[in-house]
């Protein structure tokens, strides 16, 4: 792909290549190639979205926001644009806007787990802030016990986060932060530092604030290290943080052990700093494909198996065309090119078939297998194929016998496909 790009630097494929770079953690390379490509294709919206994403992964929220906002008007229906705008606003301390964009992303793709997760966190934060503070105090009492009050205030939010909610995009960043030297840590800011009270419920420790010393002996708790680390990580954005896979976080946040873990268990995350986002590359790729000047191949359908036998049938000179319809008159598959009243014929044939079937009940004859309706200019052969009707329209002089011979193979295939 890189060779292809070198050969034609104006090609729109640079966005795809950049996406691959991003997925491989080569953020600077991706940004470079995107900038270069956008010089030649300044209106390529998708490339801008990927560039915004790259800056976000790099930790340059301001630049990412600037780029993504710039293309918002022309690409409002982009799932990834909304997702990353949500991330950017989330990082920059604008939860309302973040929530709006996460909601937009979910409107476009209700299965977007990342947006869903972030939105849940955002929603749970807003109404429960006062209670959070209360809960935080209890947790501190329990976990830290005799820690000085000054320390408690710094540590509480993180103590809750560590053990009591699913790893989120923010958490991943936090873990990365924890792996960094303390010198890089910035003071806390923004609403992210407050964990939701509801998510603290699964932990026993949170709900039993009155007896902290009994359940958490001092020797199990390593308050100082934990507190400082978790506190720092919540506060500042870190480059590459959202690219962290979720598995390492699960190791850091056990459910059966005490919440407070030593720093050493967090550090392995360092190596994953530029790792790809587990969900995004796939979504990004899906978004890229339609816009790329690549020929789209129609996906194979079960009816492809009918192509060959139907082709043989249609090769008979007197056969005009054929179609498959359900017994309630809905067209399933049309092999009659150039006729625009096929759906109407479907409905009429099904009506006749059902009416005749009812009439045969009067004769105590069950199971109308096929019928031939001869018109002045053509003949309609209708064959029962399980839940469907296979209809062949021929010229008047066609031989019905040969039609049924050819149709038999098709009927078997139809019954195999549709049951």
């Amino acid at each position, binding site marked *: 792909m890189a060779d292809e790009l070198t050969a034609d630097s104006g090609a729109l494929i640079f966005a795809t290549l950049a996406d691959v770079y991003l997925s491989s953690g080569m953020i600077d390379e991706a940004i470079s190639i995107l900038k270069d490509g956008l010089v030649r294709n300044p209106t390529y919206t998708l490339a801008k979205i990927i560039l915004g994403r790259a800056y976000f992964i790099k930790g340059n929220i301001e630049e990412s926001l600037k780029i993504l906002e710039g293309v918002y008007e022309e690409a409002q229906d982009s799932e990834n644009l909304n997702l990353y705008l949500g991330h950017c606003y989330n990082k920059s301390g604008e939860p309302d806007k973040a929530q709006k964009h996460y909601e937009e992303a979910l409107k476009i793709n209700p299965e977007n787990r990342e947006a869903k997760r972030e939105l849940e966190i955002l929603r749970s934060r807003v109404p429960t802030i006062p209670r959070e503070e209360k809960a935080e105090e209890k947790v501190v009492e329990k976990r830290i016990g005799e820690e000085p009050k000054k320390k408690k205030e710094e540590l509480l939010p993180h103590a809750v986060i560590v053990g009591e909610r699913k790893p989120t995009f923010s958490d991943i960043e936090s873990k990365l932060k924890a792996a960094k030297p303390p010198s890089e840590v910035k003071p806390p800011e923004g609403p992210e530092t407050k964990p939701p009270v509801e998510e603290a419920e699964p932990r026993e420790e949170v709900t039993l604030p009155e007896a902290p010393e009994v359940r958490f002996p001092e020797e199990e708790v390593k308050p100082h290290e934990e507190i400082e680390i978790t506190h720092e990580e919540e506060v500042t954005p870190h480059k590459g943080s959202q690219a962290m896979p979720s598995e390492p976080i699960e190791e850091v946040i056990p459910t059966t052990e005490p919440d407070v873990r030593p720093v050493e268990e967090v550090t392995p995350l360092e190596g994953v700093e530029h790792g790809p986002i587990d969900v995004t590359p796939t979504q990004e790729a899906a978004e890229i494909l339609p816009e790329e000047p690549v020929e789209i191949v129609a996906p194979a359908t079960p009816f492809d198996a009918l192509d060959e036998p139907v082709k043989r049938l249609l090769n008979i000179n007197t056969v005009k065309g054929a179609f498959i319809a359900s017994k309630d008159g809905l067209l399933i598959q049309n092999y009659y090119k150039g006729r625009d009243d096929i759906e109407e014929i479907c409905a*009429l044939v099904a*009506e*006749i078939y059902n*009416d*005749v079937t009812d*009439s*045969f009940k*009067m*004769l105590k*004859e*069950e*199971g*109308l*297998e*096929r*019928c*031939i*309706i*001869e*018109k*002045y200019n053509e003949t*309609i052969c209708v064959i029962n194929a399980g839940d469907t009707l296979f209809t062949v329209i021929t010229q008047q002089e066609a031989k*019905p*016998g040969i039609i049924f011979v050819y149709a038999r193979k098709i009927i078997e295939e139809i019954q195999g496909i549709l049951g």
Partner: protein
Amino acid sequence: MKIEDLTKIHKVLGAGLVDHDGALIESRITFDYDAEKLGAMAARVIDRCKESLGIERTSVILYTQNIVLFTRETDKGIFFVVCQKDANLGLVKVKIDKLT
């Protein structure tokens, strides 16, 4: 050729002529089938096809698990023949063409 000649064909169960209302004009049923019911049904099938497909004059052949019913609209009314499924349908059709 008359209707009787048709019923002499092997495995042909009967034949008849009804008007468009399904009233029996003439029939010759050689097996355990009700001529009036067959005639009424033949008229209904033809009328349904004419109505649905907008055909002036039509002919319909219906295959069930046991029998085959030929129905054809003629100047005199609706002609019908019922035969077993394994009858010589080609021969029956030729005879019907000659008769109508």
